[in-house]
């Protein structure tokens, strides 16, 4: 009951935020929401299925570039977002088939490698991606359902609400997913792949399902970026960007539902503080990872739950 109240208050808070927050705060909140979606997908793979992927930024990039290309040709926000997610889904399905048949260690190696392959593509394929200049002039296209409605997205508040709705939807779907028989199957795979096979489940197939869904979540987060920033550049595919959902989830709590979301928020708070003192932000990120892995694996959410609990 308490959790429901907390969640409701949070949603209400987020809903009324534009009334008193300036543009910059809305901008940061959007980024926190994007990282939340990105991290939820990452954690579906890691906390729920036991697969550690260091290449999720690759699918974020596919979503981002995909959406950007669509918007540049056909300025409809929905088309861009859905197109970006779909492309990311296809990419993760294809790469997933290559990656999931292996042991967890090979899997992690391969995800890092393929993620960077996508980065190379983004960086070198000038004709398609604009090379290291990236894609520019991406319109914050109106939210349009032909015949039904047309909402102008120029004001930041409007786009904020679009992102908020997509985020809440994504979180809600995620909740249904992980508390379903499919979610139980994935957790079984995490806990013991041998045992899962010996209760009649094809481990490979479900790993692929998990990988594809995670890729689509990364793609959704990515697709929501271009209308906000109006540009997309190669760094969104880089392995150091893949580190963000990893850290956010570690911070918030790996085996919990809300960990990635809490972690996304903490991530931005930390980054904001650290960046004021030093430009060597990655060293701090790395150091935080070390501290968390060595001493504090439950993440922040576990403090509120007692070990072994689930959000």
């Amino acid at each position, binding site marked *: 009951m308490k959790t429901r109240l907390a969640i409701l208050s949070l949603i209400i808070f987020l809903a009324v935020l534009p009334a008193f927050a300036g543009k910059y705060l809305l901008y940061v909140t959007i980024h926190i929401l994007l990282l939340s979606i990105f991290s939820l997908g990452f954690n579906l793979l890691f906390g729920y299925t036991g697969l550690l992927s260091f290449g999720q930024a690759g699918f974020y990039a596919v979503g981002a570039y995909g959406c950007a290309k669509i918007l540049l040709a056909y300025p409809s926000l929905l088309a861009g977002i859905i197109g970006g997610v779909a492309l990311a889904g296809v990419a993760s399905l294809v790469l997933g088939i290559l990656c999931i048949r292996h042991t967890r260690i090979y899997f992690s190696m391969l995800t890092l490698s393929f993620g960077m392959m996508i980065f190379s593509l983004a960086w070198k394929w000038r004709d398609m991606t604009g090379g290291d200049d990236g894609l520019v002039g991406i319109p914050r296209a109106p939210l349009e359902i032909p015949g039904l409605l047309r909402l102008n997205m120029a004001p930041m508040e409007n786009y904020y609400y679009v992102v908020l709705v997509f985020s809440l939807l994504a979180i809600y*779907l995620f909740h*249904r*997913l992980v*508390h*379903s*028989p*499919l*979610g*139980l*199957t994935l*957790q*079984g795979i*995490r*806990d*013991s792949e*041998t*045992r*899962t*096979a*010996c*209760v*009649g*489940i*094809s*481990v490979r197939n*479900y790993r692929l399902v998990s990988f594809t869904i995670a890729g689509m979540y990364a793609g959704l987060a990515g697709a929501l970026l271009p209308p906000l920033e109006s540009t997309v550049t190669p760094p969104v595919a880089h392995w150091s960007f893949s580190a963000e959902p990893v850290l956010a989830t570690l911070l918030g709590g790996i*085996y919990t539902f809300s960990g990635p979301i809490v972690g996304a928020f903490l991530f931005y708070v930390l980054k904001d503080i650290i960046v004021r003192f030093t430009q060597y932000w990655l060293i701090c990120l790395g150091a935080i990872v070390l501290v968390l892995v060595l001493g504090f694996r439950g993440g922040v959410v576990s403090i509120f739950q007692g070990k*072994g609990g689930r959000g």
Partner: protein
Amino acid sequence: MKEIIRTEGLGKYFGEMAAVHQVNFTLQEGFFTSIIGPNGAGKTTLINLLSGYLLPDAGKIFFRGTEITRMRPEKRVKIGISRSFQVMNIFPRLTVFENILLPVLSRLNKNARPFSSLNSQKEAVEEAERILNEVWLREERDLPAGQLSHGDQRLLELGIAVAANPQLCFLDEPSSGMNPIERIKVLELVKKLSAERKTTLAIVEHDMDVVFSLSDWIVVMNRGEILAEGKPDDIRNNQEVRDIYLGEEI
């Protein structure tokens, strides 16, 4: 009595070493069979081959007449072959209840549903509760399985194996690593499962009292081959078998 599983010339080799060699045997449906033999005789390898965990280098396996030699383990479960593991293999972070619910959902082909809640799967939930009762773990229902005592984990392991409602179930040393009290409980459960379910059980076991009191049929392995098989009395009086146990009371 009908044959339920049969092997022909089954072999598995690790380099020069034959873990299992030229094994021809048949299990009869409804017979409680014990597989015994000294350490390293190939008993666990045999179970691994029969359950699909390992693929053989030679020979064939037939389940109710259909060849299943190279069938993947998950498919074998679907056609009715299940097993438990010598080294504990449960789902530690899932609750005891969920440990049983998952194989039940799998059996009902409902484990892939992405959006329905677990509680809404009435049939599966009821069956899982029943099995939980059957293996005496009702009280531990909501504990994470990793927190159970060693003995209870073994009960859970057996529960997972029978939750698939198998026609044939292999139990690999179900009482290994247990203290005497736990052993009694586990073996009581095995007896109960054998009596109450329509599953043909085949167990690898070292406790000779259990073997001779429970079994309808005994298979003796030594150095990867079948040394002898037959009814308990025949085995008890078999000189070769007595020799490999070096005069132990059997």
